[in-house]
């Protein structure tokens, strides 16, 4: 069950994006429970923090967002996963749908409203 202002884990290797995303989403009432810089730390953070939503960057230093999403969704009570990228969703073809993610938000369009739409 996703609450109206769900707890969020931000996974991205760019610090400027993590900082801007945290500030933007918090300003819109979201709770940022944690940040991760790569795939491995993302998996650990999800297990430790149990966020309701994981904002997951597609391009990670150690792996990509699709593999992390697959891994997370295979577990019990998985968080809702929203993939994000500076590229457009169409650049990835069917990969997003097949990854088990709830939705996709282009980085440039990230805000509370687009995140909520992606979670629907």
């Amino acid at each position, binding site marked *: 069950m996703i609450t109206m202002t769900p707890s969020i884990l931000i996974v991205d290797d*760019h610090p*400027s*994006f993590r900082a*801007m*995303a945290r*500030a*933007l989403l918090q*300003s*819109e009432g979201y709770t940022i429970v944690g940040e991760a810089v790569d795939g491995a730390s993302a998996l650990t953070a999800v297990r430790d923090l149990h966020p309701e939503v994981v904002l997951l960057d597609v*391009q990670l230093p150690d792996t990509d967002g699709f593999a992390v999403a697959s891994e997370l969704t295979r577990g019990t009570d998985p968080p809702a996963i929203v993939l994000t990228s*500076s*590229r457009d969703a169409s650049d990835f073809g069917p990969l997003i749908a097949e990854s088990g993610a709830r939705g996709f938000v282009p*980085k*440039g*369009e*990230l*805000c509370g409203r687009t995140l909520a739409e992606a979670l629907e």
Partner: protein
Amino acid sequence: MTSRRLRIAALVAGLVLSAVIAVGESRTHVHHNTAAYLILGLLVGWSFMIAGQVAWLRRPTNLIGPLMCATALTWLSNGLTDWPTDAVFTVGELFASLWLGLLVHTILAYPSGRLRTLDARIVTVLVYLDTWVLSLLVLPFTEPRLDGADKHSAHNLLLVDHHHDLVRAADAVSLLVGICLIVAMLVILARRWQAAGVAAREVLAPVYLTGAVCMFVIGAVAIYSGFVEQTGDIPFYVFSLSLAAIPQGFLYGLLRTQIGRSGAVRGLIAEIEASDEPQRLRAALRRALGDPTLELVYWLPEDDTYVDIEGDLVARPDDGEGRAVTTIERRDRRVLQMAHDASLLDDPALLGAATAAASLALRNQTLAGELRSQLREVAASEQRLSDLLEGVRLIAVSLDTAGLITYANPFLCELTGWSREELMGRDWLEVFNGTEVQFLERMANDDVLPYEENWIRTRAGEILDIAWNNTVIRDRDGRIIGATSIGEDITTRRRNERRLGFQLSLARAVARAERLEDVAEPMVEALGTTFDCWACVYWKAEPEELVPVAVWSDGATVAGDFRERVMASRPAGDAGLATYVRGTAEPRWDVDLDDDPVVMANPRAGHGRGSFAFPIVAAGQVDAVVQLCSDDVRGPDDEMLALLETVADRVGQLIERRRAEAAVAESEARKSAVLSSALDCIITIDSANRILEFNPAAEHTFGYRAQDVLGKDMADLLIPPQLREDHRRGLQRQLQHPGGRLLGNQVELTGMRASGEVFPIELAVTRIDTDDLPLFTAFVRDITGRKRTDEELRRSRVRIVNAGDEARRRLERNLHDGAQQRLVSLSLSLRLARSLAQRDPAAADEILASAGEELSQALEELRELARGIHPAILTDRGLRPALEALATRAPLPVELADVPDQPLPAPIEAAAYYVVAEALTNVAKYANAKHATVRIMRAEGQATIEVSDDGVGGANPLGGTGLRGLADRVEALDGTLAVESNGSGTCVSAVIPCE
């Protein structure tokens, strides 16, 4: 019983019988003229008896004597049949008819006493059968008294039964057969007489004459009495007298020779004492022995030869038919043999006396005889020589000093067709050879050549070559009176030698000849010497004239300037024999040539001025004319013509062949030049896969020398083992079904070098069809280098593509990680700032300030990216400013030592920019250098880009993608990139063609 006792017994028996007959006749008076019958009967009987006794006494071993005595006794026994007593009558009948057989026997056995011939024996036996045996057979059936023929009263004691008809039949048969036998006997005697020599006839004559007369009378009387019943006494008288004449004849002949020879032996001794000349001895012996056929022969024991008294060698005397040889021997073994009539053996005493007398003569005669025999031997040898000359298959001829023929043997006549009678006394020069005047001159000067070769003309005009052996004939004073020559017909041999010699020299000339002119020289010499010419010229037929190519001359015969004159001549039109022959294309012989340049060039040419010329035809045209000049006016014979025709034919063929060869050689030379200079390997094989052609390129490519591979199996040498079978099958297919993909197309295959190294080849095969099986020529190119280049190019292209991909990937990542991320952040910052603008303007203001900075960095990164894609400054401002920008951005001092003022082609400038940029990046990253220098130079159609530093070195041109990419870029412009790196620094240089 001895012979002598038998003889006396016969004499006594004759006397007894005579007495009995006389008594019987006187008592019976059977005949009306008893006295006459008695006297005639006794005369006949005793004639035979006396002659028989004499013969028996003189020749005890000869049966003539006993036969005549037996004839006498049986004749006398006829008288017994007139005896009135039966016993005496019967005994008389038993022997009465035996005398006739004995008479015939005696005559036929005379004078030897033996019946030597078969016909004589047969006749004798038949006579016995016809007279005596038949009368004995008839005796038991005859009783003369009953026939009324006889008047006496005695009886036949052996009578069985009287058969008058049988007796008459027997008498008739006996008469008939008897007449035949008499004829046969006369024939035998006649033949013997014919065959007898003179001496023998002397002996035979009396007996044969009387015998023949008697036989004739007997026959006549028998025939007469057979037809006339009452014959009377006359036939008996004639018959008896003729019968009595036979022993008279014998006695006459015997006594005559006996008397004559006795005197002759005395004369013989007197003659031998007077002279020992063998001719006189022989004449004396002939006279003494009454044998004109007598010959004396000396036996020479040293040589076992026989010579007659003339000294002539004779055959060993032989005692053949009717001849006998008596040998007169002396102790010193010198032997005289006397060949004489065999009848002389009948008188051994005479023969003995004659030989004894002759032996006296031997002592003096034999030496002289031998000497004479030697002289005769010389004469005989001359005779044999003469016989030899007559029969030998060589010419033998004698001439007197005027050249007239004094002797000509049959072979010369046979050879030339003249008869001996026609030749004797004729002039040799006129008949056989008019040019032999010098022979007579030589004979006159006693200078005749012992051996010479010449010719003669036969009656039919044929010329024969003769080898002569000459000898002069001298009289007793040593003056030459003529000459004899023995000649051998060497026509065939000379022709063969001439032909052989000529063909040999011509063959040598042709074999040695490189050009046709090389043949002409030896040919004229060979022709000239072979045919005894004084000159021979080879004229080449040029369009307008004849040009002398080769001149041979007999230096002794021609004038000094002959050669120059001929070589200077150019006969044209109708001047001379050669031009004529050129015009007709036929050989020609001519004499008395007044317009011929060769003949006229030699004033010494003989009166005949004979010359012969024949054309040499090549390809249907007269190519040359060969002219021979000779004083020999014979002209060419058929043999020579045939030979020269062959020569002309061969030389003509040679000319054609040489021309063809020259054409082929030219083409070969061209081909050879092509082969040698061809860069491609050219290899020709025959249908058996043997290499026929292997050009220098092939030698170079495959590593074999041509001489090592020619004739060998191509597949074994040039094709890798695993492909050889395919090749052989392909060749077989090609031979059976011409065509296929290989012919005329370029295909890539694999070849093998001498080292065993396998390498790629490009191959094109051409089939060359010949009269025989086809040949195949392969044009092979070693494409190892091209393959390597192709591979290099392919890799280079891959690298360039990869480099492009990598560059784009890097650009995308840089954009994504750099400017894109900053723009995303900027976007989020602006959205956040807007949301904070109302609630917290200070915070929003801070965010906007940070966003502005983010935007500046994003722009800077984009510029850097754009510069990496292509340096804009290079395009806008040129190479030098672009390089200066690089130098400025470099973290170490970079000196631009040399940069051309004139712009380079854009691709080369770009390559230069990237070489410098990459090299400086590497210097900054790895070289640890304090200083770097950049040089761009343009010279001799090349642009050289050089970046050197004073760093630690260790650069590897293939190590990183950077330098490899630079090399690709440079090689894409047909340039090369080199990196030299050592402890004193690194120098990267690129050389790019630049027109």
